[in-house]
């Protein structure tokens, strides 16, 4: 005991004797600091992100078909959606999974992406006109409505003229004379006096012409990529309790419909100028940025002031007039050109931003369509089905939703929710209606089902009808008649009103199923049990954790961890080499001291423990200081929180701030590392020290 105390004393006194020790100490300090803080931060991000992933789409466990060519990636892969095989029916899977005592709910899912066109200015104006004509025919015309109609008509005509101008410029720019002749003719007609003179004779027909021929030529509607998750919307909302409806309402039980992500709605479907005003406001409220100094904010202001077209195009003559007078009041200007006024108005500065923002929403926005898609309107989604043909489905948008804490995350916000039936249809899966429609078609055309295995016999065998081809006489099948058969007609309006039974939702194809557990702590064991389950193997299912199901995103923390450990390993290799060298030097310097001790009667084991203990004390003192500083930093950050600097970080932080916590494991890892590395690096020099001969004590050094 006394010997140990002496050794410790020797070790401590030797600690600051040489500057080499201080340098080693510094490195050890830094390395432990890094291990503790880095480890704690990554753990915290990991758990925050797991909350994000589990709470948004993945659930604790995902189950998908074992026949899949690729692994499930709920947030998408680098090159789009993962190629997962369809599971034919959800019901038996659900029944099997719910047998496990720890499974709370099973939610059916399928993810896919599609392109949509958000309506352009002409579409919007025409839609408004159509609305007015309908009101007219229902309630009779009022002078007020007439004035609006005339104003809108003038607006459309104005837009047609603007379009012609644009087409001319385009022709000059791309030297392409080959304009589609039908387009040229349509545009010419839309600009002609005759067309507008005759407009009132058949307003709805004229509108249809404009919608079909003119609107597609206007390029300002965006082609948007939309990602959606088809699911049992009720079950989804119940299972993922972070989900909340923001605008509109939930999709009524059993009905077809979509809930857009609030983020997606704001980011892509809102008037761009308004969106940018929102973003500027948000940035300024953060208190860190000013328009005067931040290039991003300056860019937004510049984009707003140089692109008044988006606003100007929306305004018909009446509203233009209102806008001009309001803006002139606000700006105290004599300018009459709306575009210039809007541009001037949107040229905001730090000083006037707050008032301008208020004025923008109070004065200008009421004249405009703030969103290109209104709650309750129908979105036509066109997707490539699994078999490669294009499938179009109309889905009404009931509302927007968000996950609390992840409001600003583009990643969590990238997913829109869709009812399971529409999803299946877009996926190319035969819905009940389609099956009925096909059965009807078969009946009409007298098709006979031929089994593959005896196809040859039935088609070409003795019993086969000899006039197999002759039936296809031209003109016999009326194509138009086929298209407007009962099934197609049904699709347009009635489908949207139909209420599907829970059975229909569940007894159909899904791509995956999300499991919510009763006790999340048991995730690992539950996962293992499900993976071992023979029943699930028989159903050809693959069971994965949320982490794997999230694809690349789930691996993010793992990658970060690898980078951190890479740095730590390099650092410790350096530490190892330096300690090794330093202890070697120290041993050489102390040969005489060691020799004396040996001569006086110290055994080799004594020398060994002395040297080892010294490095260990070195490691523990500086490592302890590093760990202490690291824990202090984490504790402080745990109180203050790390703000999510960019929207992307919201997902990783699972909210606006990350409050890192320190777990004992971080400290234990650091402790083991330090002790291990210092001991390991000292073994050889310590061994050398034991070989110092006591004779050296006798040697006289000059």
């Amino acid at each position: 005991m006394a010997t140990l105390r002496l050794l410790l004393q020797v070790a401590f006194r030797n600690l600051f004797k040489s500057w080499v020790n201080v340098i080693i100490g510094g490195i050890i300090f830094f390395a432990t600091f890094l291990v503790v803080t880095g480890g704690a931060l990554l753990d915290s991000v990991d758990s925050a992100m797991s909350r994000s992933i589990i709470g948004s789409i993945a659930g604790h466990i995902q189950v998908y078909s074992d026949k899949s060519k690729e692994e499930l990636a709920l947030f998408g892969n680098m090159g789009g959606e993962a190629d997962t095989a369809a599971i034919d029916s959800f019901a038996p899977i659900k029944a099997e999974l719910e047998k496990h005592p720890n499974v709370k709910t099973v939610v059916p899912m399928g993810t896919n992406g599609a392109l949509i066109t958000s309506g352009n200015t002409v579409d919007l104006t025409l839609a408004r006109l159509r609305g007015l004509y309908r009101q007219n025919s229902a309630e009779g015309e009022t002078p007020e409505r007439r004035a609006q109609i005339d104003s809108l008509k003038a607006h459309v005509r104005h837009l047609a003229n603007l379009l012609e101008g644009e087409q001319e410029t385009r022709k000059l720019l791309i030297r392409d004379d080959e304009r589609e002749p039908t387009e040229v003719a349509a545009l010419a007609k839309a600009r002609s006096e005759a067309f507008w003179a005759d407009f009132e004779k058949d307003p709805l027909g004229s509108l249809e012409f404009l919608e079909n021929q003119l609107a597609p030529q206007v390029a300002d509607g965006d082609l948007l990529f939309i990602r959606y998750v088809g699911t049992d919307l009720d079950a989804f909302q119940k299972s993922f309790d972070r989900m909340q409806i923001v605008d509109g309402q939930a999709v009524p039980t059993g009905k077809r419909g979509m809930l857009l992500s609030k983020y997606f709605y704001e980011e892509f479907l809102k008037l761009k100028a308004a969106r940018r005003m929102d973003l500027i406001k948000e940035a300024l409220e953060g208190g860190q940025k000013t328009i005067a100094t931040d290039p991003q904010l300056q860019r937004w202001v510049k984009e707003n002031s140089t692109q008044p077209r988006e606003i100007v195009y929306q305004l018909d003559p009446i509203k233009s007039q209102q806008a001009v007078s309001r803006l002139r009041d606000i700006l105290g200007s004599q300018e009459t050109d709306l575009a210039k006024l809007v541009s001037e108005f949107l040229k905001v500065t730090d000083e006037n931003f707050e008032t301008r923002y208020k004025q923008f929403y109070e004065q200008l926005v009421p004249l405009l369509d703030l969103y290109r898609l209104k709650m309750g309107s129908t979105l036509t989604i066109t997707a490539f089905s699994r078999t490669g043909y294009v499938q179009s489905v109309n889905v009404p948008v009931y509302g927007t939703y968000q996950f609390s804490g992840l409001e600003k995350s583009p990643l969590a916000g990238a997913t829109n929710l869709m009812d399971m039936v529409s999803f299946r249809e877009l996926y190319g899966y035969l819905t009940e209606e389609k099956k009925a429609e096909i059965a009807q078609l078969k009946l009409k055309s007298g098709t006979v089902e031929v089994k593959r295995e005896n196809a040859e016999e039935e088609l070409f065998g003795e019993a086969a009808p000899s006039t197999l081809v002759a039936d296809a006489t031209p003109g016999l099948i009326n194509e138009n008649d086929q298209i407007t058969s009962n099934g197609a007609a049904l699709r347009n309006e009635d489908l949207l009103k139909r209420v599907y039974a829970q059975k229909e939702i569940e007894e159909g194809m899904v791509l995956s199923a999300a499991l919510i557990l009763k006790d999340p702590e048991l995730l690992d064991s539950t996962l293992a049990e499900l993976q071992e389950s023979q029943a699930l193997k028989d159903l050809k299912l693959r069971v994965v954790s949320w982490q794997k199901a999230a694809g690349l995103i789930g691996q993010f923390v793992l990658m970060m961890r690898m980078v951190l450990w890479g740095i730590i390993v390099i650092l410790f290799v350096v530490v190892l080499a330096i300690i090794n060298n330093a202890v070697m030097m120290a041993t050489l310097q102390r040969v005489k001291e060691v020799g004396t001790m040996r001569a006086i009667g110290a055994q080799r084991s004594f020398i060994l423990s002395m040297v080892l203990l010294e490095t260990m004390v070195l490691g523990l003192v500086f490592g302890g200081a590093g760990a202490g500083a690291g824990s202090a930093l984490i504790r402080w950050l745990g109180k203050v929180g790390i703000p999510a600097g960019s929207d992307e970080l919201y997902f990783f932080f699972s909210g606006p701030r990350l409050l890192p916590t320190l777990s004992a494991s971080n400290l234990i890892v650091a402790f083991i590392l330090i002790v291990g590395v210092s001991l390991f690096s000292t073994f050889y020099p310590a061994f050398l020290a034991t070989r110092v001969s006591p004779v050296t004590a006798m040697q006289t050094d000059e």
Partner: protein
Amino acid sequence: MSDSIVSINQVTKDYHLGKVVVPALRGVSLQVHSGEFISIAGPSGSGKTTLLNLIGCVDTATSGVVKVAGQDTKLLSERRLTDLRLHTIGFIFQSFNLVSVLSVFQNVEFPLLLQKKLNAQERRKQVMMLLEQVGLASHAKHRPNELSGGQRQRVAVARALVTQPQIVLADEPTANLDSVTGQQIIDLMKAMNRERGTTFIFSTHDAKVMTHANAVVRLKDGKVLDRVTPAEAGLAMASGAEAH
């Protein structure tokens, strides 16, 4: 004589410098009796230090027999040799060889700690007694670098004697000291020899120091030239006379 504490018989010691064999001792025989105060003298390279190393059990002979306290050192393991040094031999070095990070007290206590025979209280008593004898009790808490050369060597003497060894080996104990301090150290050693009966074997080439020995073993070229009393060694007397 039967009570020789050190018995050396026809001992040779060769050092290997690369392929060259350098003989340091060429057949030395020597008997040292308990309580003797022996000086080993001789010019540089005569084998003084080698002989002391063999007696001190820090080195082993190439041939011949070295018996220390009755034990043939050749037959002992490294471990046992270390134990022999710890319990039977005390060392005083030319350059003091104190552990710089330890206090005077701790330096003296060090061999007792290695021995693990005494408890803290007994150790304290023993150490303080020795420090008083060497006149450094008041410096117990000092570090070696706060002491003068003479004081350091006195600490070393205390350290060498604290375990009450049978033999104390001193290799040129006065070489790094001025003559007055050197004299004090020799006086101290002599007093210890007288009071405790400890055998002292020291090497020196200082003729004045040799005069205190009760025997002088003169080495030359690795061989014992003779073993005489200081009086018989005329040189020693002569230089002693010169000094007066």
